[in-house]
């Protein structure tokens, strides 16, 4: 456990030094968040690669994302199996195939809550919301940026290593999640026309 902390801290400081050498990150990050917060809703297509520690092979899926300000996020998976995940406020409902939706409070699973909040707060341009959960390192500039979100405190630090969001302007291009158990998932996003 202490070793993991040290590693994390090392990674963080590196990330922090990187952008500082290029240009001061504070100014463009605020601008970026401001611009993100002005977009009322958006739709996008995604493809996702999941590597789950317990499974021998990675899993691939694709579908659509819908976001409506301020707090509604929908992830509709079309293949290989139809699934619909809706987050509204702090309620999360998940329906698979034709089955009835399972509804649970985000508070029930800190990990799921943190993942949802990481994406939702970024889309909403809610920097304060992100900072409640994460330490933020920002790399790049408005034209091409990367936010590395590291959990700020336990119990999240125990299960989640990082959430990395890549983007250009107000477009979000990719979201990568790395868990402490070795699970990784990478979602690649293309805005739908």
């Amino acid at each position, binding site marked *: 456990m202490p070793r993991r902390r040290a590693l994390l801290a090392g990674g963080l400081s590196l990330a922090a030094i990187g952008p500082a050498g290029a240009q001061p990150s504070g100014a463009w990050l605020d601008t970026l968040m401001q611009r993100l917060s002005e977009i009322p809703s958006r739709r996008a297509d995604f493809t996702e690669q999941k590597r789950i520690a317990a*499974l*021998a*092979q990675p899993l691939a899926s694709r579908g659509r994302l819908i976001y409506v300000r301020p707090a509604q996020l929908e992830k509709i998976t079309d293949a*290989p199996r139809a699934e619909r995940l809706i987050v509204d406020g*702090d309620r999360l409902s*998940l329906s*698979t195939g034709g089955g009835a939706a399972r509804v649970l*409070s985000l*508070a029930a699973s800190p*990990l799921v809550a943190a993942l949802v909040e990481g994406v939702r707060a970024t889309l909403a341009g809610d920097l304060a919301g992100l900072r409640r959960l994460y330490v933020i390192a920002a790399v790049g500039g408005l034209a091409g940026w990367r936010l590395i979100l590291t959990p700020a405190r336990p119990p999240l630090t125990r299960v989640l290593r990082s959430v990395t969001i890549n983007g250009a302007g107000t477009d979000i291009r990719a979201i990568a999640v790395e868990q402490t158990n070795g699970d990784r998932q990478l979602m690649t996003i293309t805005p739908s026309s």
Partner: protein
Amino acid sequence: MTLRRGLALPAALAGAGLLLALSLHMVTVRSDVAAFLPAGRTPAARVMLQQLRNGPATSLILLGIEGAPPAVLARISRDMTALLGRSGAFSLVENGERALAGPDARFLFRHRYLLSPATTTAAFTTASLHRDFKRLRADLASDAAPLVEQYGLADPPGAFLNLAQIWVGSSPVRVAGGVWFAPHRNRALLLARIRANGLDLVAEGRAVGAIQAAFARADPGPARLLLSGPAVFARDAAHAIRRDVRFISIVSTLLIVALLLWRFRSPLVVAAIAVPILLSISAASLAVQAAFGFVHGIALGFGITMLGVTVDYPVLLIGHRKRGEPAPATLRRIGAAFTLAVATASLGLTGMLFSGVPGLAQLGLFAVVGVLAAAAATRWLLPPLIVLADLAPVSAGEPERLLRIERLRRWRLWGLLPVAAAAAYLLAVGGPRFETDLANLSPVPARARTLDAALRAELGAPDVGQVVLLRGADPEAVLRREAAVLPILHRLRVHGVIGGAEIAARYLPSAAVQRARQAAIPPADVLARRIARAQAGLGFRANAFALFLADAEAARVMAPVTLADMTAPVIAARLQPLLFRAGKNWFGLVLPRGVTDPGRLAAAFRGVAGASEVDVGRETGAIVARSTARAGRWLAIGAAAALAVLAAGLRDVRRVARVLAPIAAAALVTLAVLTALGERLSLVHIVSLQFVAGVGLDYALFFARRQLDAEERARTLRTLATCNAMTLLTFGLLGFCRTPLLRQMGVTVAMGALAAVLFGFLVVGPRPSAA
């Protein structure tokens, strides 16, 4: 001589005051509800009532927050939970945020295969594991993957999920904004358990204070905080009693002193009258302390008020004294009536003394000892003091005016009218209505009890109505008995007799059951082979279920979980009231919910070894009935004794009848008025009426004295008017009390005493002379 005359009274007063301060310092005052109410009839009922009054159930506080939008309520709920958790006064603060998380979830997860009924031989077969693995594989591909990984991979048979449902499932609460809400209204709910036990009023007061402070600090805006639970009741009752007692003692003392000053125009008289009162309160508190080991706040407060009527004794003595008369002469004139009055007043308290309700018994003892002490002090201590200070009424009153008043007796037959009306009314409505609910004897106001029932229902906290107690020598013996009862409960639920039941064995199975579950888990090498076969072709890595294998093997050989292991906060709080020790035995409490057929429920447990069914409502009803019957019997005995004393003292049947008539009339009219006011007659009213009878006799005996000269008649009339005014003042004041019991007594006695003095004046006094 002048020095002695000037100093004797103040010195006696100071001495009596000092003695009172000393004795009040020596007694222990308690104001909890438990100490006031009677114990049960059967051993099981006694255990149950004891548990309800000072078991772990009494440390529970139910909180509701309402009057603001749901989001605001949720935020207040979260802020309060954090603040209260830090305060250290509570062993548990729950608002639904982490209903089963932290240490509780960890404990249940570690012991899932021993505690969960999902641990069966069938669950560990290759076929069953294959089905579980397939489901897990599908879920891992979904967005619920993090949840599946957290619990699923280490527990394919779902023992933990099953356990979590058992722990969380039975509550009707709704979760909104991450916290508990009432199912059908906008009210956030919280539960807190005080660290101190249910009898520690100081700690309870501090805990309730901490809750109110936390609410204020949580920036509530327009929101309101609702508080309930035994601890809150106890604190509120103690507050109300203390407030009532202070209010009555100050106001009634001031009023009585003012009245006496106006009547006698001498502070010395007031000082003389105070001496027997102070002495009687000391004697009474010490006697109750010696007999019961403590003095209940209600007994003390109300007892002092009741002793207010013993002010009558010195007033009767001084009021009847002619200026310059030696004490023996005054005593000779009133001695017989005085002795009879004291004897009958004491006998009038027997119903209270032997009611079997500890609080009322204390009150009875307090009053009897107080009355006797005040009478003794009046009889033997006061006369020399009075004569020394030459205390007497300013004037006996104008005989002319007296005659005018006495002429009113010519219309005494009209006095029959209210009596006849009262009798007719009571006959018409079928007699007074009687109270059977013990709850109405308790110092907790009805409104608070209604709120408590509402919060309890919304939180799914068991409302204790019909329960089953299972007895055993140790927790394991109780849990084994409960294991045998589980199928009965299941059958009752299937047949719709009950909606469900809280029972310890669902949370903590007996060691025997746990060992049977251990036997259902295959040894590690067998399980490893089955896992390998079951996961073939599903795409899992070879070691995907390593944690499951290790945990199952650990569970197979670990020592069974005992009550002593169940220390995580939510778990301990849930189990504590369900499995407890009382005396030498251990008891398991089965709390059925939604009982539709009490008769069938009772029948189902008849003949079950070590089980006793207790209907708390019926039990308390029976206790009230028994106490009322006992009070009634002793009332009759007391009345018979008083009658015998009267007969012996008056030696004239007609005079005895004349003395008793106004009392019967007063009781009848009071009963009718109480019934017309919609009051249900309880033990309290009955003992109050008996008290009225004692006071009424007092008046009647003095009216009935052979008093030939007009001056003496005037003295009696004025003195009795003073006495009656004092009684009305003190008991009328009780009518303004917040404690229901004191209010009922006050109204009954004030009304009865007024009726008694009026009827006494009309009926008992001599017929006015023909002129």
